[in-house]
């Protein structure tokens, strides 16, 4: 499936690799932060609805 990139194979695949790693990092960080904020807000709002719980 990988095309014949000739003598520049390392260059091209390196560029794609770095791009995918950086995109995966920002996506993972965004999703993780989003999940944590959603969980914390839900917990806080639940505790306000049940002050004696």
């Amino acid at each position, binding site marked *: 499936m990988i095309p014949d990139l000739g003598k520049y194979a390392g260059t091209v695949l390196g*560029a794609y690799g770095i791009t995918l790693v950086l995109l995966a990092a920002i996506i993972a960080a965004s999703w993780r932060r989003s999940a944590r904020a959603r969980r914390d*807000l839900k917990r806080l709002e639940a505790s306000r609805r049940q002050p004696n719980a």
Partner: protein
Amino acid sequence: MSLWRYANPAEFMRISGPVLPALWAAAALCLVTGLGWGLLFTPDDYQQGSTVKILFIHVPAALMAINAWLMMLAASLIWFVRRHHVSALAARAAAPVGATMTLIALATGAIWGEPMWGTWWAWDPRLTSFFILFLFYVGYIGLWSAVDEPDTAADLTAVLCLVGSVFALLSRYAVLFWSQGLHQGASLSLDRASHVDTVFYRPLLLSIAGFFLLFLALVLTRTRTEIRLRRIRALQTIEARP
């Protein structure tokens, strides 16, 4: 119906929530198709060989690096004029995404430059203005974190965004202002004769669409997170009152 109703945090959350899954799916589809087409099914360039395939990541990332800052500029101006918190939070949410795009453009440009120019880096007008834009992104993110009071942070970062816009525009038009430098002109143009060959053009457009949709999905997700964090701070402040 006014556009400003989306500036209401509750309304923004209500509208953006259902849109997000489709946006993520469209971004993934365009990225996989565009990058797969570009990497696997386009020919080598007669001068650049297979390194031309870096075009499909370098150009979309560079475009989004500049456009992300311009989006932050628009959001900052809305914050200045109308004091809508969602616009300030959207600008904050976009900064790490824009910084990532700038880093991708710089890294892939250096990797591409080494075999084509014989150097990883040159103090060329476009490269230099792009590097300064990256420093502005880092400074912008740092300033948001450094100031505790959210409205003051939004004011200060909006000013920084206005100043940094000079470099965002310079990054785009540097090759027109200064004729010297290693970096070539734009790969895309309204004038069909001056942009890349058709065989590269279509997968490039698809990759650009993928990067744009990914940017939108990330900014919406991160803006929703910022709105939730703001709500958490407000609730904690209320609970802390005697």
